[in-house]
């Protein structure tokens, strides 16, 4: 242990603790800008670049960055001496002097860490006037880049390179011209980017933002010739409340359904319903592959990878073109829902598919790009027209003079609204796996699963890759789960090297903790406990559901009876499954 004083207060910390953390332990909150951590989730950005966190250390010539300086025995630290406050203010004034400062028109207004910092330090004017560094604007279907607002904190870069191992962003140019950009300064859409949007989730300012589709959706609602259907993803209901001042982890399913109805959607449905459908298709596919394997088929592709995360799908299309036969061909729940809505449901209510507008509310930015993929269109008409994020939905609700807190509890509409606990947990890492096991076990073994909760696969902290073995009547089914594409990359490389651990089924989610930590969710500003609370809410919602297994969902049973016949049958192959493309040229170009 190390003893030091911070603002004359004695503090004892473990060796290797930074001044920043020691100060927090002592109840002193030193401001930061570039530093970013998802505690317990193996994500830390510590470039020591912004110099906002500087403190005075007795005997040291210059000020020390608290985030990047380890405590030493006997250290005397001062966090608010006149010298420190002056330096900190000057540094923030400098940052603001090279910033557009157009908060009123900024996507980040109210959520911006630079804005909060300026307020906290009481910045009243910026004494430095001068040139502004500027860079061309750029956007993909999911992410918008305005580097004029970039403060060079490098959080995006660490996220993209270390956590996702995508490597789409890095520092380019030098000095005043320095920016974060893809290699060779190409556009993000031409790079290795997979549109996971995590760079947006961690960007402290409005330099990286989402592509806003609220206007498109409002227009569709206002169009009398259109019927507008909305579906809401599992992770949205455990996070939306945060935008309305509720505690993280409040479940707002019923209030959200009520708000959506008041926004003018004609049918308020649930992506949870199609998550149950996904389990039927993916679970059947898994059993099919396992059975072929047991029957001696040497060409069968195992492990089966989940395919419900479009960030992950794009990642393997770009990085593992030789392994495109491994992931499940089942569409993501968003796209399954779209296919069912535009085929089955449009027909059922007698509306032409072009006149049915399908909107999804997702925790995700990758879904905006996913729904625009050509293979998910029929004669140019997309199965899902627009994908909004949790944050956009909150904006829409506020724009329409509503407050989620005041909403009554309402149900989803039928027939694409009823879901099970298995679908709810899709939102958390390990959830798809657990849901699939609940169904696959019972179909394979022909008897009820002895223990419904597969605790071994749950949790956002701990091992990067979680594994479990489930006994399917003597058949040991080996599963692995991870979030973060750098972990997925390791698993893919294992598979390339012959799958030495003998996995049968692997679940991958791109975002920290799965979709509950998605890039379209309310900003967590690095508080991993917020993601933890969303996860707890997810499992609470599951436990409270009368039906917790996808194959027992009466609406799912009904749609197979009425329309699809059987899982992985002919019609479901046509509508509910997809195929993958070799997109490695995007990576090759930057090599």
């Amino acid at each position, binding site marked *: 242990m190390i003893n030091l004083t911070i603002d004359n207060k004695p503090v004892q910390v473990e060796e290797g603790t930074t001044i920043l953390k020691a100060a927090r332990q002592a109840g002193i909150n030193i401001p930061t800008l570039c530093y970013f951590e998802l505690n317990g989730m193996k994500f830390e950005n510590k*470039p*020591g*670049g*912004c*110099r*906002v966190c*500087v403190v005075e250390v007795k005997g040291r010539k*210059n*000020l020390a*960055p608290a985030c990047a300086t380890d405590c030493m025995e006997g250290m005397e630290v001062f966090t608010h001496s006149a*010298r420190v406050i*002056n*330096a900190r203010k*000057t*540094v923030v004034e*400098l*940052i603001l*002097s*090279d910033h557009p400062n157009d908060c009123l028109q900024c996507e980040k207004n109210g959520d911006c860490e630079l804005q909060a910092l300026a307020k906290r330090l009481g910045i009243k004017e910026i*004494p*430095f*006037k*001068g*040139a502004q560094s500027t860079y061309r604007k750029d956007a993909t279907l999911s992410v918008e880049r305005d580097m004029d607002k970039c*403060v*060079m904190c490098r959080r995006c870069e660490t996220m993209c390179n270390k956590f996702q191992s995508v490597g789409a962003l890095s*520092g380019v*140019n*030098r*000095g*005043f*011209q*320095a920016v974060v950009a893809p290699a060779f300064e190409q556009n993000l859409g031409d790079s290795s980017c997979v549109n996971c949007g995590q760079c947006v989730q961690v960007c402290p300012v409005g330099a990286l933002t989402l592509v806003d589709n609220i206007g498109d959706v409002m227009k569709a609602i206002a169009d009398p010739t259109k019927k507008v259907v909305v579906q809401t993803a599992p992770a949205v209901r455990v996070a939306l409340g945060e935008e309305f001042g509720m505690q993280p982890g409040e479940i707002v399913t019923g209030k959200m359904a009520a708000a959506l109805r008041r926004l003018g959607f004609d049918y308020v449905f649930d992506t949870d319903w199609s998550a149950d459908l996904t389990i039927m298709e993916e679970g059947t596919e898994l059993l099919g592959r396992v059975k072929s394997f047991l029957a001696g088929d040497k060409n069968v592709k195992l492990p089966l990878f989940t395919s419900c995360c479009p960030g992950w799908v794009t990642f393997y299309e770009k990085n593992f073109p030789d392994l495109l036969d491994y992931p499940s061909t089942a569409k993501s729940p968003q796209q399954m829902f779209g296919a069912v809505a535009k085929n089955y449901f449009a027909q059922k209510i007698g509306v032409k598919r072009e006149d049915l507008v399908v909107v999804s509310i997702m925790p995700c930015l990758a879904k905006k790009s996913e729904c625009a993929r050509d293979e998910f269109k029929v004669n140019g008409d997309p199965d899902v027209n627009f994908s909004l994020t949790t944050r956009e939905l909150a904006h829409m609700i506020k724009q329409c003079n509503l407050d989620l807190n005041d909403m009554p509890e309402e149900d989803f509409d039928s027939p694409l609204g009823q879901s099970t606990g298995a679908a709810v947990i899709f939102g958390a890492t390990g959830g798809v796996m657990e849901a699939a096991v609940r169904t696959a076990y019972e179909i394979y073994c022909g008897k009820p699963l002895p223990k419904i909760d597969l605790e071994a696969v749950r949790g956002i902290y701990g091992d990067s890759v979680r594994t479990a073995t489930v006994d399917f009547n003597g058949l040991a089914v080996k599963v692995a789960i991870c979030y973060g594409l750098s972990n997925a990359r390791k698993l893919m490389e294992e598979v390339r090297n012959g799958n030495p651990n003998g996995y049968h089924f692997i679940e991958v989610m791109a975002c920290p903790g799965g979709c509950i930590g998605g890039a379209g969710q309310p900003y967590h500003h690095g508080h991993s406990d917020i993601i933890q609370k969303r996860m707890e809410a997810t499992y609470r919602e599951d436990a409270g559901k009368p039906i917790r297994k996808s194959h027992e969902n009466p609406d799912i049973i009904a749609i197979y009876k009425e329309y699809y016949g059987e899982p992985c049958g002919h019609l479901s192959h046509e509508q509910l499954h997809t195929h993958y493309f070799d997109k490695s040229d995007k990576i090759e170009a930057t090599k």
Partner: protein
Amino acid sequence: MAGQINNVGLIEVPMGITLREIIYEIGGGIKGGRQFKAVQTGGPSGGCLTAKHLDTAIDYDSLVAAGSMMGSGGMVVMDETSCMPAIAKFYLEFTCEESCGKCSPCRIGNKRLCEMLEKITDGRGTMEDLQELRNLAAVIKDTALCGLGQTSPNPVLSTLDNFWDEYVEHVVDKKCRAGVCKKLMRYEIDREKCIGCGKCAKGCPAEAITRTDYTAPGHKLASMVIDSEKCLKCGACIGGCKFGAISVK
């Protein structure tokens, strides 16, 4: 050893030798017999030392104590034709180029220092700017991440310390005593001396010279005048006037 000195080149000297010995003995003194003004030691992030430092011994500690450093071992000698705010700006332009851009004080701060020095040498500076300049330079030194940013304000701080009067002249009197800062120069025609030949006006690229309605006693033609707003300070007129009527102030 470089600059306005008779013998420039590479020299090897023992530690502890004084600046005076190097400049006046090895360097052979200042070019054209002009006055020594300053010596910048240690490369672009060193400091500018003055005549009062001439007997400083050249070693690591003494140079730091005097407000400069050993750095690269380079020395640039300057005489009275060097303007110190302009010299500080010259070095800052170099460090702006060299900044990697990782930390905010160096990335943005050095750029701002440069811009403030430009304002001062352009004659747009104020006394507040001088305070701000000193504060910013000190904060950059105190907060930058690496050695480059921690030393890049040295030319500013050392010239502010050693040549404060010269800065004040730039912002208050709008004068550059070394005659380096073009925007602070004024070309003027002495209307009594001007015979009104108009040669200067023909040669002026900015059409800044016009005829007045004043004819000096003893002259036939009205004398000329320079519009200093239009004047580019190119110096063409002054060389062309055989009557010595044009001067720079």
